[in-house]
């Protein structure tokens, strides 16, 4: 008897193919399309200068580090801990660790991150053409506590995201209360693209010229092509933001170290922390998504990179007076990845309805952690937004998730 007919496996590989499987051969096309989705109004410079004098609400700051799809097998499993030395040795001893943080919604990037940020399982377009349907943490924080836009930032490497991640389609909230959203990796893509188009590929072999190419892409005719949404869209980036980005680019290019998209995301995040010190900062890394191309070695390298960058980010929190002692940092994957032997090609993808894909973990560090411990009780990703909102001092709103009792502002 056949155990797997053509239809059933086609069902796995084509009929229900999630976008990212196709994206690996045409991702940039979609990015270009996504870049056109930026919307907003004016007044960028005014907004940038109206930075809040003090932290609104409880005074607590939240940093959420989301790291793409990684399996337990390659991280918090005996054979995986070698890939995460900083998480296990440097951070875990001080952390509140949940070994089971579950994604019970759509295990695709936009919906996964949107579910974490809204407290409701989101089932919108995987390409980010539609905003989440319920208010994001950014909107709740800004509307409830009157926080300025400069207090809420999303910095993401993940190319499946669009600026729609910054605000929901909820009639009572929406773009007016949305976050600043930047995609550093898109800047890299644009620079590479323009260098190619201009016959300047030699520039990509010379760090000084790479910097010029990146700055040129940043200052190009219309930054909307980057898909960002910063202090309300206009045809020019706010000068202070532009200064921060250039500073980040300089650090990225001149550090003489690794040059992945997540590295650039880290530098931009650090600059934003130093210049704007937002109360709500979400960082989405995605080097691990090299798995979609089938390189297990590059996927593991991505995990090691994120392990180091999460640790460096925590060091920045501890060294930066705007954050030290009043910040809680959460680190979690969006989901796992599919198990070896699945009809969805194992670690390449993240769409199997399996524990390997749904059951992940979460680590929390900082002010809201009373004492380091491991909480075996499974939690859900939708429980996080109510928890974040509670720590920030927002009033609860209806959500599928519930606030986690282990955290105290």
């Amino acid at each position, binding site marked *: 008897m056949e155990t797997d007919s053509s239809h059933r496996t086609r069902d796995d590989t084509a009929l229900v*193919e999630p976008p990212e*499987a196709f994206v690996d*051969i045409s991702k940039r096309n979609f990015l270009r399309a996504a870049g056109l989705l930026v919307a907003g109004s004016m007044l960028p410079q005014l907004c940038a200068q109206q930075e809040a004098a003090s932290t609104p609400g409880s005074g607590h700051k939240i940093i959420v580090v989301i790291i793409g799809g990684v399996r337990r097998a390659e991280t918090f499993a005996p054979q995986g801990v070698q890939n995460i030395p900083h998480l296990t040795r440097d951070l875990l001893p001080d952390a509140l660790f949940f070994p089971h943080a579950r994604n019970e919604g759509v295990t695709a990037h936009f919906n996964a991150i949107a579910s974490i940020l809204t407290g409701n399982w989101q089932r919108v377009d995987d390409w980010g053409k539609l905003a989440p349907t319920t208010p994001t943490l950014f909107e709740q924080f800004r509307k409830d506590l009157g926080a300025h836009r400069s207090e809420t930032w999303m910095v993401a490497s993940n190319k499946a995201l669009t600026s729609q991640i910054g605000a929901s389609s909820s009639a009572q909230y929406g773009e007016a209360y949305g976050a600043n959203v930047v995609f550093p990796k898109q800047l890299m893509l644009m620079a590479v693209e323009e260098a190619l188009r201009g016959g300047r590929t030699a520039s990509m072999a010379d760090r000084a010229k790479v910097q010029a190419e990146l700055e040129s892409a940043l200052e190009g005719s219309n930054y909307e092509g980057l898909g960002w949404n910063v202090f309300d869209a206009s045809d020019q980036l706010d000068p202070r933001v532009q200064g921060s980005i250039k500073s980040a680019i300089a650090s990225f290019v001149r550090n003489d170290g690794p040059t992945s998209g997540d590295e650039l995301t880290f530098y931009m995040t650090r600059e934003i922390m130093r210049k704007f010190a937002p109360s709500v900062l979400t960082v989405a890394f995605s080097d691990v998504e090299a798995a979609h191309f089938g390189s297990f070695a590059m996927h593991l390298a991505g995990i090691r990179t994120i392990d180091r960058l999460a640790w460096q980010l925590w060091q920045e929190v501890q060294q930066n007076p705007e954050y030290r002692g009043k910040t809680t940092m959460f680190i979690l994957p969006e989901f796992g990845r599919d198990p070896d032997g699945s009809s969805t090609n194992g670690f390449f993808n993240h769409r199997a309805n399996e524990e390997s894909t749904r059951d992940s973990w979460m680590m929390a560090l900082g002010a809201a952690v009373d004492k380091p411990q491991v909480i075996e009780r499974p939690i859900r990703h939708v429980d996080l937004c109510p928890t974040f909102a509670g720590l920030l001092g927002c009033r609860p709103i209806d959500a599928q998730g519930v606030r986690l009792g282990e955290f105290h502002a």
Partner: protein
Amino acid sequence: MPEIPADLPIELQHAIADGLLERLPLTFLPFVQQQLREWDFLFPNEHKSVQRLLLYVASLTPAQSAALFSDVVQLEEKMGVRTWQFSTTEQTIQNSSLLARSPYFQQWRQAVQAVFNAADAYAIRTQPNAAATRNRLVLLDIPGHLPVERATVWDRWQGIGFAQPVRIPDAARTSGSLAFLLLGEPDHDAASSTGVLRASQQHAEAAPAQAWIIDAGDSLAQAALRRLAGSTAKPAPTLLGYKELDAYRQKFSQQMNSMRKDLADADAVYDRLRSVDVRPWCPPEVAEPSVREFVRSLFLSGNGAVIFGNSFVEWGASEALRRARPALLVAQFDVRPRPKPFTGVAVFDNPDQVNPLPSVDDPQGSSLDAQMLALYIWLAATRYEEYQHATVCVCLADSIAEAYVIAPPEFALTRSADPLPLESLRHQLSAWLA
């Protein structure tokens, strides 16, 4: 009423003319219509599979077929499929996205599975000999330039087979161990010197789709092409070499990039690439329509097949196993370059085009990839009934002169601490296939 392809089996043509497709749920139509339209590009195994489903449905009364599909139809109602922009003529990215994000998606998959289980059961009742199996071989190679750790290389296989030291003769050191096993020794006419390919060709059920050779580089593919050019043995195997397909891949990418500025959505890209005439880019061994379209489908369905040779091998092998169910599947991995500085973010671009720095091989990373992907090929095989009993899998790790062997009790080879001469392994594998 869709146009009925003239080359469909006559009983299928009659069933369709009698309104068979109207009895299928909406979510079955894209797949079925696409399979019928692309009938000429399907492998014999796929023909059987489509026929099995459709003739089963045709054998039912309207009330019985309504009962068969009732769960699927109810779920479609709950999902609101009729309100979607859902293509019923072909599988689209939009369709997939809509289905996958529905809260009823998993239930829908189970309901679809139940329909196919019923069709399979019907096939067994009506054609009890259809599932007869023959001996099969999955032969994999991590070549010598990809270093592996003897102590850990087989850990991921979790003891499903055993590690067997092999003795590689000088003749195999130049041609490569896999070529030595597959193609034999060209200067020897004795039957004992021929490779497993010849054994598979001599089988009564030999057919092009029954033997596949997939190469992440070009050494095995070139050796096979040379040998086939001087041979009268038929049928020729299906041969896919990543480097042999360079022109196809490059042109394919160029087509993709040229569409970038006109892109409206994912399906626009997909449609264009599905209709691009790829024949001018196909090497002679990929000229056969089903193979040519197999490669197109491979490149379109992602999984890194257009980016990395080793991913091409794994995904190509997995798809060949799923679609063609070959008796012999041979796959060789190779080295890939390291990502160049500042190009990792644009990984699917040609890195040589983006960055003029010379490419640097990544043997360690490639080896790690190959170790995982070799296992994945075997795991892909085990999903199908045909490979669950009379199948031998041998994965060679040349750098440590060792093979990992998974075999049923009937296979003559037993574990030994003494190195097994490669000639003996070749002989035993040939005997198994023949």
